[in-house]
C-alpha cells in the first residue's frame, strides 16, 4: 500500500478523502456543463413553444438515418468507455488501453457522420449563416432559420465537446502508458469516463428534440 500512500497529494490526509474530493469536483463540473447546455435547451423550448409546426417541418429535413446511427455509435462508445473503466479498476491495463482507443475511434466516427450531415445540409442550402440563400419553401422561412440556427449551435457545441473528449482520452492513453502504479490511471480514467458519459447524455436529449420532432 506504500506506493498508494505517496499518491496522496499533500493537502489530503487519506487516499479515500482525495478520491472523494476528485469525484465530487468532477460531478460539480458536470453540473455546470448541464446548465451550460441548459441555456440552449431553454432557447429551444421557448422557440418550439412559439412555433411548433415549423419545428416539425424543419425536423423532417434532417437525415434521420444518420442521426440514429450516430446515437448508436455514441451509446457504444459509452459502453466501451465504461468497460475501460471497469478493466482498469480490475487491474487489467492493456484491455483498458485497447478499449480506450476503441472509444476514441467511435467518437471520431461520430464526428465523421456529423460532418457528412453538415455537408449534406450545406448542399441543401439549409445553413442560414453560411448559405447566402436559405432554401426553404414550406412557409415561414425566418422561423425555420431560427430552428436551423439552434440546430447548428447545439449540435456544433456538442460536437466541440465531443472533440475535446477525444483529445482528453488520447492524452489519457499516452499518460497511462508507463508501468507505474495503477492508482493514478484508475482515477484519471474514472473522471474522463464521467465526462464522456455526460457528452453522451447531451446527445441522448439532442437526438429526439431535433431529429424526432416529426
Amino acid at each position, binding site marked *: 500500500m506504500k506506493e498508494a500512500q505517496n499518491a496522496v497529494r*499533500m*493537502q*489530503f*490526509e487519506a487516499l479515500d*478523502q482525495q478520491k*472523494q*474530493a476528485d469525484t*465530487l*469536483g468532477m460531478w*460539480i*463540473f458536470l*453540473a*455546470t*456543463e448541464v*446548465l*451550460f*447546455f*441548459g*441555456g*440552449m435547451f*431553454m*432557447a429551444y423550448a*421557448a*422557440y418550439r413553444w*412559439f*412555433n411548433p409546426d415549423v419545428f416539425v417541418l424543419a425536423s423532417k429535413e434532417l437525415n434521420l438515418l444518420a442521426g440514429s446511427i450516430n446515437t448508436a455509435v455514441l451509446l457504444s462508445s459509452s459502453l466501451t468507455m465504461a468497460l475501460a473503466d471497469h478493466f482498469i479498476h480490475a487491474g487489467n491495463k492493456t484491455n483498458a488501453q485497447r478499449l480506450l482507443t476503441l472509444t476514441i475511434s467511435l467518437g471520431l466516427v461520430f464526428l465523421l457522420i456529423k460532418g457528412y450531415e453538415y455537408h449534406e445540409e450545406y448542399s441543401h442550402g439549409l445553413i*442560414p*449563416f453560411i448559405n447566402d440563400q436559405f432554401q426553404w419553401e414550406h412557409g*415561414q422561412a*425566418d*422561423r425555420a*432559420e*431560427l430552428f436551423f*440556427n*439552434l440546430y*447548428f*449551435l447545439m449540435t456544433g457545441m456538442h460536437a466541440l465537446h465531443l472533440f475535446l473528449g477525444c483529445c482528453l482520452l488520447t492524452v489519457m492513453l499516452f499518460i497511462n502508458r508507463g508501468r507505474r502504479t495503477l492508482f493514478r490511471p484508475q482515477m484519471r480514467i474514472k473522471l474522463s469516463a464521467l465526462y464522456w458519459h455526460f457528452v453522451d447524455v447531451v446527445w441522448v436529449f439532442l437526438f429526439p428534440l431535433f431529429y424526432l420532432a416529426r
Partner: protein
Amino acid sequence: MSNATSAGDYRATKSYLHHEPHSIRAWLLTTDHKRIAWLFIASITFFFVIGGLAATLIRLELITPVGDLLTAEGYNRTFSLHGIVMVWFFLVPAIPATLGNFLLPIMIGARDLAFPRLNLLSWYVYILGALFTVFAVVAGGVDTGWTFYTPLSSMFANGNVVAAIIGVFVVGFSSILTGINFIATVHTMRAPGLTWFRLPLFVWAIYATALIMVLATPVLAITLLMVALERLFQIGIFNPALGGDPLLFQHLFWFYSHPAVYIMILPGMGVVSEIITCFARKRIFGYRFMAYSLLAIAFIGFLVWGHHMFVSGQTTYASLAFGLLSFLVAIPSAVKVFNWTATLYKGRIHFDGAMLYALGFVALFTIGGLTGLFLASVALDVQVHDTYFVVAHFHYIMVGGMVMAYLGGLHFWWPKISGRLFSEFWAKVSAITIFVGFNLTFFPQFIMGYLGMPRRYHTYTPEFTSYHVISSLGALLLAAGYLLPLLNLGWSMFWGKRSGSNPWHATGLEWQAHSPPPPLNFESVPEVTEPPYNYDARDPFDGSRPQ
C-alpha cells in the same frame, strides 16, 4: 479552544510570505492558497480603482443637466465600463477569491484547498478575462451597459461588444473554478471534530456563495456566447426579425445576474457575522437560523429573477409569481439583520475599525434590503423600474453592504494575512468617512428615482439638478474615503507593529495558526471540540493588544 499554541513568534517558523522561493516566478506559479489570495487582492484592487475612476467620471458629468464633461458616446461607454468592471472584476470575486481563498482552508484546519492547481488556474483565467476587457476598453469601450440587452447588443451597438463578452465569458470560468474548489474543500477536508454546525458562519457563507457561482455562471456563459455568435456570424437567436424573442435573453441573463447579486452579498454577511461576534465578545444569536438563512437566500435567489422584467412585456401571471417569490427572498435577509442586532444585546462591545465597518454594513444593508421590497411589489416597480431608485437600491446593497464588509474583513483578518497591525485611528476615520460619503451620494438618488429620473441618462431635465449635485459631492467624499484604507493597510504592511497570532482574542481555527501562517498553516492537524464563537461577554476583556 485553547490558545496555548506557541504565542506565534513568527520568526521561529517561516511564514508563507517569507519562506524561500519568494522570487517573482515563485509567486506567479504558487499553489499556496494564501499567496493566490494575495494575487487576487492585487488584481481586484486594480480593477476597483478602474471602476472607481469611471464612477467618479460619471458623477462629475452629472453635476450639470447638460453633457459638458463627456460626449453621449463617452458617457455611455463610461457607465458600461463601470458596470462590467465593478460587477465581474471586483464584486463577484472580491470576498470569495481573497478572504475566502486565504481563510477557508485555515478555518477548517486544512493545509490547502482541495485542488490547489485549479485555484491558480482560476487566477490566470481571471487575468485572461481581464486582458480581453481591458482591450475592449482601450479599443473604445462598449456602449450596451453591463446588461448587454439584445437586440441592442447583438445588432445595433457598435462598440467592442464581442471583446467585452469574451472577457466576461472567460472570467465567468474563474468563478466556476473557485466555486468547485470551495465546495469540494468544505465537503471533504474539514478537520476532525469539525462538524457542519461547528463551522464558522464565514465558511457557511462562502459555501453558499460557491453553490450559486457553480449553478448560475454557466447560464451566463452560454447566453453571452449566443449574443457573440449572433453578432459575429449572424446566427440569429434573439433577432426579432427571425421571430426571436428579446425577452428570452432577459430570462437567461437575469437567471444568472440575480443570483450573482447574492454571490456578492452572501460572503459579506459571513464576514460581518465573524466581526460582530468577536467585537461584541458574544456567541452569535441563533447560529442555526443564520446558517440556514444563508442557504435559503442562495436557493430562493434562483427563483426571483423575473422582478427585473415586470415592465418588459412579461405576462401578468409571471410578474405576480416573481413578485411573490421576491418578497419571500427578503425573509432570510431580515432574519440575519435581526440576529446581528440581537448578538449585540448584552455583549461587551469594542469599537475597533473592523467593528465600525460591520455596524455600517448592518445599517446600510437594512436600508438596501428594505428598498428592495419597493421593487418587488409589482405596482411600485412600474414607477421605479430603470430609474435612480433602482440605482440607489443596488448600490446600498453592493457598496453599502458588500464593500463595507470587504473592507471590514480585510481589517479584521489583516493581522493574520500580513502579521502586522494597522493604525486603529485611521481605520475608524476611514469607516466613518465612507459611511457619510456613501449616504450623501446615494440617499438623494432614492428621492430622484421616485420622481422619475431615468437610469443611464447622459443629460437630464433641470428639475433633478439639486439631487445630482449633492450626490456628486458625496461621491467625491466617498472616493477620498476609499483611499484611506488603501494607504492605512499599505503602510502597515511595511511599518505596522508586529501582531501576535490572535490580536483580537477571537475564537476560530484561523486564530490558532501563527500570523502570518506557515505555508502548511498548522504544524499538526488541529482538533475541534467546541461549537464556534465560544465568547462570554461576562468575563472582563478590554481588547488589549500584545505590546
